[in-house]
């Protein structure tokens, strides 16, 4: 971070009516308020909410296409997809599973934010029919840094790491991994082509967060998807909220 401390304005004699006002306001407070309100709504309507995070292209939408198709006749699933622009991903999920509610949040109107925040979720929730929703899955904007710090009101956080991204990412982006309950190693079908050691990834993830669950899967071949579906089936509400 380029520090700007010391860049004071000149205290020349012209600022005679200058006054200092103490504010001491936490700028994260607003997000926490929206998140708490979201959380209350989710609890009231008996919805369980999962926040899915990863770098762009790790396979979030591909996994949700499979997941939506699998669950469309089994449980009431709704999906909210965040992206900087275009409705493409929400449309992809609708194409894969017509019976699943799939709505897009375009962050272009929020200054092209590289993450979703609780206010964006709050403003998108009226587009979701709660009576038709048991589980709400939120696909966050592709980014391994910023979304980790923003609680949306969710029950669980899932982080994806795809094989082509490399097995050094846990150490490089530990905040994301320490905030997640489940790590999905995706694109396992590419393991032969890449120098990727899933055991090393699991070990490093556990070092950061002892109780993290890890699953290996491929949306392309279907490997490991059964375990992921079980995880979704077993979802429970979270007792405490995130910081």
């Amino acid at each position, binding site marked *: *971070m*380029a*520090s*700007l*401390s010391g*860049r*004071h*304005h000149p205290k020349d004699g012209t*600022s005679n*009516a*200058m*006054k*200092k*006002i*103490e*504010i*001491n*306001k*936490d*700028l*994260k407070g*607003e997000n926490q308020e929206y998140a708490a309100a979201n959380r209350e709504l989710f609890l009231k309507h008996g919805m369980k909410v999962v926040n899915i995070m990863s770098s762009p292209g790790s396979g979030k939408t591909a996994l949700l296409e499979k997941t939506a198709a699998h669950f469309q006749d089994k449980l009431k699933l709704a999906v909210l997809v965040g992206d900087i622009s275009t409705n493409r991903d929400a449309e992809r999920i609708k194409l894969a599973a017509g019976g699943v509610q799939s709505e897009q949040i375009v962050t272009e109107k*929020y*200054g*092209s*934010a*590289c*993450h979703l*925040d609780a206010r964006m979720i709050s403003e998108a929730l009226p587009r979701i029919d709660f009576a038709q929703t048991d589980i709400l899955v939120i696909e966050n904007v592709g980014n391994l*840094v*910023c979304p980790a*710090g923003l609680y949306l009101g969710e029950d669980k956080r899932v982080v994806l790491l795809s094989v082509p991204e490399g097995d050094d990412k846990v*150490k*490089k982006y*530990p*905040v994301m991994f*320490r905030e997640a309950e489940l790590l999905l190693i995706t694109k396992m079908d590419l393991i032969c082509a890449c120098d990727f050691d899933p055991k090393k990834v699991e070990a*490093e993830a556990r*070092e*950061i967060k002892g109780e993290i669950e890890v699953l290996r899967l491929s949306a392309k071949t279907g490997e490991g998807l059964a375990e992921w579906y079980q995880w979704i089936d077993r979802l429970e509400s979270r007792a405490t909220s995130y910081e």
Partner: protein
Amino acid sequence: MHEYGIAKGIIDTVLAEAEKHEAKKIKSIELLIGEFNNIVADALVLNVEMLAHGTAAQGVKLDIKRQPLRVKCAACGKQGEPKEALVFVCPFCDSMAVEITGGKALNIVSIEVE
């Protein structure tokens, strides 16, 4: 680009404060920003300048105080600043079993108005 949202929060807050105190002009804003937030100061300044344009905060100076990241290690028990930015590894024993004990602040401390 998460500096925009933060800049928006800052400008909204300081304009409301200035109005409450019947100030005509906001000259400077003192911020305390923890490293954990991964904020690019130049991007924050640009966004604040843009949002301040045409308001009582136009031309406002940002005085950014940086709060370093600190971790407490569960393995060796020591506290310190990680060697690499945003890599939460104990600087003494390289363990990743660390708890973040500092660097999360994102506060508007004060403003100067006239």
